[in-house]
């Protein structure tokens, strides 16, 4: 490949892949909020319930 095409292609691929992974990792690593939240799959997880007052 010629140099200019290679530079543009690699820069773009590295940047786009990096940001995709970064944001998805951030989603996975952010602790969920206590119930009630928007998602039903975790409704019954005991550690996610608000402490009873």
């Amino acid at each position, binding site marked *: 490949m010629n140099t200019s095409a290679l530079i*543009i292609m690699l820069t773009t691929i590295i940047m786009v892949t990096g940001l*995709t992974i970064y*944001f998805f990792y951030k*989603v996975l690593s*952010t602790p969920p909020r206590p119930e009630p939240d928007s*998602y039903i*799959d975790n409704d019954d997880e005991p550690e996610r319930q608000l402490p009873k007052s």
Partner: protein
Amino acid sequence: MSANKESWGSRVGLILAMAGNAVGLGNFLRFPVQAVQNGGGAFIIPYLVCFLVMGIPLLWIEWSMGRFGGKFGHHSTPFIVDTMHKNRLWKYIGVFGIWTNIAVAAYYCYIESWTLSYMLHSVVGTFEGMDQDAVAAFFNSYISIGKSTLGIPLEPIVFYVLCLLLNTFILSQGLSGGVERVAKVGMPLLILFGMFLAYKGVTITAGVDGAINDSSVGLNYLWTPNYEQLWSPSVWLAAAGQIFFTLSVGMGTVHCYASYVRSKDDIALNAMSAGWMNEFVEVVLGAAILIPISIGYLGIERVTELVQLGGLGLAFKTLPYLFFQWGDVLGAISGVMWFGLLFFAGITSSLAMGTPWMGFLQDEFNWGRKASAWSFGIIVFVLGMPTVLFFKYGVFDEYDYWAGTVSLVVFALFESILFAWVFGMKKGWREITSGSDIKVPGIYKFIIKFITPLLLLWVFVGSLVTPKGGDWGAAFSGNWVLDDSSIIKKMMNSSLKKELAEAIAAVNPAEVERLQNTLFYVNASRVLLIAVFLSIALLVYVAYKKRVREGKI
């Protein structure tokens, strides 16, 4: 009380569904062709700039509008936008957010059905031993509802109905039980298939399996920057247009999905994650398949000819033949993967198109999930059959142009003005940042208020009055002749009428008859699309009156 009890199962599921909504056939078929036609590697610069100043702002606008409307129990754009300002006319602008989806689904599900059918044809070995002309002829015969090797009568209609039934069934299972489940399976598979084909695309060696070029020739063709084109407004217009189609903004689907997110939960990070995932599929995977493989086997000249006809031709008329250069087994596997990834890209988008209509019926008329899903399937079938039966008369292209292109820009322009100027940037910013898991850069306050609406206005005006040959220099120097691709000329059917006049002058009765029929079907499809829009607007009016009667307004 609303019959709408939908909700998302998990955050990852929502992001995959939202990314699936954005990732469509255009990621693999439209982006590489646009890049090749608009400066190669230099196209990526305006493309990424437009993503930053138009794509991301529109994603945040739509996510926050959706979540805001959801607080009031609205899950479709007419009443989502109605909550944002007291002027009652806004809800009729919101009709675009249902109409676009129904009209686009009508022809989109037809392409989706091709992918389903071609997957099966790849498995049974239909393309084995065929040369490129035979594969292209097979496609032409298929869409003209000709004879198929499967022996199924009216095969395209059968697959179209199958595809609609599948969409309807999944929609009837609800968001978490249907749409999200498909996204959780479909998106990882799509990425996996895409990575395999991208690997094959970038490892082609000249002289092996009949290849005439190394992959590097195709990659050079796609990525070599032509910096002169960087200053052309047409290139920027093409880049901005591509950002629209790729992100599925201006449709009403993002609003609908986000309306099921509670106000304390994040939308800013979710939007970024889904948006960048779409970019990964488009820029990294999409760029490594269609063009490098085609050029590897056909050469630059032939591919340059083929890209003028668009990505669909390459995908269905050329790639099935090229895959079989890798041998019968790998050819069949690659065919299944290629059409499989197109199918997953398609179905995750077409499912999203069903949800605004379903949300509207559930919210406003207390319809159940199943009934509203089936009503979507039936309407799409009725509206879509003309695209199947009269494909050769341009009905398909007409739907794509008005519903899948112009309408998106119009609605996005209106919603960006509503959000930033009518609803107000102060409230708007609060909506974007409320519950956010990332720090949204403050510069976006300025971008959303000024840059995004101006860019959208420019895209709209630029498409409305595109100068001949995209020569903006000549246009601004006083010689503004409209191009046949401009909205105004399209509306006037200028190109068709010109062709008709030429056919009459050349005394070609068969061509004259074909063009007269095309003109008829083009106009008829416009009438049909307008009738659908007005019918939805009428339903919105009825729903509004019902709300007034029930004391909800």
